[in-house]
């Protein structure tokens, strides 16, 4: 139960607007607004995170890491049963199906075991464009669906690539005057920064028909000071963490909490 708000100064902004509103009686109340999921998953009992065409960085296996992460999230927060079978090596399958020729991988890329060959030619957004047709191949996806009891299939592309930028950024500079008083002034400094861009496209396919139900693309980036050493995998998870709620909202309803003001 929420007690009527009195103008005691605990919420100065509210008090101010209350005063502006002509001292009307008002009551702050918490609400939860339900947002319906984009996809109607009621016809599915299972979800199969099949795999991803991934590239952009040779330090991590974007396919395997994404599959692991999404399956884990769907197990915890989704309503559908998660199919636990080997992720598909979609870069290989797609390049063979579509006859896409990828440039050879860089030598350093062969050190880690991976579900797919090292990303090699997939370096930028445009390198993923030829793969769009792969997700439209209803016959192929229907076959995959049949192997997994007509599950909802989650697939797509993952581009996770390093980024370097340089330019002026605003920083706060701390100074002390002759009386020892601290002063913080914003200054613009030229900096070079390194980081990563994560650009996943999630494709949701009806495993019973092979048809695409929904596609969603995200883009997140993170930048560090040049002397900061952050492992690629750590940055990958940090960026994924930002967009996971939106990914999950495609399949499950979400409640957004907030407060509103009731008036008399």
């Amino acid at each position, binding site marked *: *139960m929420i007690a009527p708000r009195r103008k005691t100064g605990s919420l100065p902004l509210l008090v101010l607007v209350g005063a502006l509103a002509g001292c009307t009686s008002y009551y702050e109340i918490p609400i939860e607004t339900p*947002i319906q999921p984009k996809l109607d998953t009621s016809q599915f009992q299972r979800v199969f995170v099949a795999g991803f065409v991934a590239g952009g960085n040779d330090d991590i296996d974007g396919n395997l890491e994404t599959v692991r992460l999404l399956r884990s999230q769907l197990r915890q927060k989704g309503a559908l049963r998660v199919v636990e079978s080997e992720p598909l090596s979609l870069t290989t399958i797609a390049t063979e199906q579509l006859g896409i020729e990828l440039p050879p991988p860089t030598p350093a890329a062969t050190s880690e075991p991976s579900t797919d060959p090292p990303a090699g030619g997939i370096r930028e957004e445009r390198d993923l464009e030829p793969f769009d047709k792969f997700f439209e191949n209803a016959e192929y996806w229907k076959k995959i669906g049949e192997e997994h009891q007509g599950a909802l299939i989650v697939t797509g592309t993952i581009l996770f690539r390093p980024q370097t930028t340089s330019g002026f950024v605003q920083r706060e500079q701390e100074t002390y005057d002759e009386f020892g008083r601290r002063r913080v002034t914003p200054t613009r400094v030229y900096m070079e920064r390194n980081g990563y861009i994560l650009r996943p496209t999630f494709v949701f396919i009806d495993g019973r028909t092979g048809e695409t139900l929904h596609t969603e693309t995200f883009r997140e980036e993170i930048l560090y000071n040049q002397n900061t050493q952050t492992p690629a995998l750590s940055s990958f998870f940090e960026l994924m963490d930002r967009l996971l709620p939106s990914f999950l909202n495609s399949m499950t309803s979400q409640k957004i909490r907030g407060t509103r003001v*009731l008036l008399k």
Partner: protein
Amino acid sequence: MSARVVAVALLCAVVAVPVAAEQRGEAKEQVEFGIQVAQRGLWREAIYRWERAIQLDPTYAAAFNNLAIAYEHEGELDKARGAYEKAITLEPNNALVKQNYDLFKEINDRAAKKDG
């Protein structure tokens, strides 16, 4: 003839003021009861009360504001927008209604983005 018209108009004016005041009074009771039940989480009952209030007094901005909040809570976002807009039309300078509407729009934009 014209004297009769004037007399009828005057009579209507004299009667209308207490009737309007009475309707606002009844609407206010509905609004207050709606607030009480909303605070106990009984949002459907609150909607019923506030809908009744705007039937009684269609110029009651607070009732439209509260109704909009309840619709929001029930996920009826189109209805919520309509009720907020009506409340703002009735009281364009009410900062609290505007604040509620701005918060609502943030959520509505997110939902719209998902639909796009």
